[in-house]
């Protein structure tokens, strides 16, 4: 969706969304998850190698508390038969129930890429991590 060029002569209506401060960057180190009590199930805010992402704490599969799951990598097939390797360590989340893998940055399910967990924008402003789009 493209945004219209700002028309300085008229006011554009702005959609207001709620945002909430999650914490200071140093309180949310890489590899951590913080569950913010917002929405029906909470929202998990992840620091993946210095970048912040947020996912609904509700697995689209069977309703597990998704953000209680392991942060891990994704195992992919290697080059030869029976070879495998792990990639993207720290970038994936495994549901604590049936073990479905999700890419933290996009919420996309690895086994079923057409399915994705709802994500939320996260902003870092002056060292403060802010969860937006609520």
């Amino acid at each position, binding site marked *: 969706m493209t945004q219209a060029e700002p028309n300085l002569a008229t006011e554009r209506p702005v959609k207001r969304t709620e945002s909430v401060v999650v914490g200071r960057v140093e309180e949310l180190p890489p590899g951590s998850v913080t569950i913010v009590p917002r929405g029906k199930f909470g929202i998990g805010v992840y620091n993946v190698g210095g970048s912040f992402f947020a996912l609904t704490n509700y697995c689209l599969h069977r309703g597990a508390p998704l953000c209680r799951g392991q942060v891990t990598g994704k*195992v*992919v*097939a290697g080059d030869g*038969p*029976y070879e*495998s390797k792990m990639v993207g360590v720290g970038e994936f989340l495994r549901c604590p129930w*049936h*073990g*479905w*893998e999700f890419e933290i940055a996009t919420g996309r*399910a*690895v*086994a*079923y890429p057409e399915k994705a967990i709802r994500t939320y924008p996260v902003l870092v402003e002056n060292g403060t991590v802010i969860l937006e789009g609520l």
Partner: protein
Amino acid sequence: MPARADVIDASVHPLVRQPDELREYMAEPWRSLPFPGPHRYLFPTPTGVAPYGEYRSDARPDKGLPGSDPALMARHLDELGVGTAVLLPLCRGLLPNVDLGSAVCAATNDWLKANWLGPLNTEGRYVGTIRVNPEDPAAAAREIERWAGDPAFVQVGVPLEAHRPYGQRNYTPIWEAAARHGLPVAVHSEPGAGTDFFSTPNGYHRHHIEYHALFPANFIYHLSSLIAEGVFERLPELRFVFADGGFDVLMPLMWRMDLDWPISRIEVPWVSRKPSDYLRDHVRFCTAKLEGAPPEIRTEWFETAGGADLLMYASNYPHWSTMAAGEFFPQLPEDVRARVLCGNARELYRLPEPTPV
């Protein structure tokens, strides 16, 4: 029902005239070694009560074993409504001496060619199966190479009984050879008196009816293995035919495999698709007389289970459970029946369209 030129029977079992006829096609020392006869010893089919023996009584020629007389078979196939028949000869079971097992397979192929696929097969009514011994993959691959250029052979055949599931890596040379030549692999239970494991995971059952009801479901051990070990990923051209039936239990068992595939990705990351997604491209089932939902829900079940894509009609002649083409779910729509009676087999085996009579 009159024979329809287009009906393809995906599983017919010719037999030698008498057990030792096979030796005529074997070199020494195999020719002189003892091996089991052509009948199943474990779980004997009772003769004094239904089904009154393993074979249709009218399939016994005056001289010779059931299914050994080409004229009689031809007449019976006509009566069953069959045009083309895929001959799937059975061997002598799992033999501990793997070289003997391979020799029996090779002799079976030579016998089939000479007696059923040669000069007498002028109308091309019959096509054949290359029997191979999965216990010796290198020999099996060589045997496939030996026959692969002969258009009379349209598939490879292995027993349902095995000592390792067919997806495991020891079998790789066999499936590679089959895939290389575009030959499907048919799996069918083997008679004999060999080194079979139990026919169920709980051991032996006492009654023939139990054995007969349960053994076809054993396809799932091979199918789940082929998928989980990535065989269909590595060999996109490979197709398997489960020729003893079992289609009726396929759908619910594959649902289970689908259910635990996501959590299993760490162990089998090469399974790139949901397991049931492999079926249409890689698996077919032969029909069986005693399978399927009751008539009142048969159509709904058949559609839900995807029978139109996966099934191929087979008579299983000359066994007691022989099914005529006309017996296959008459209430299904004609176009669906046509796929099962001929379309799916024609596509799988790359058979020509029938010439108009």
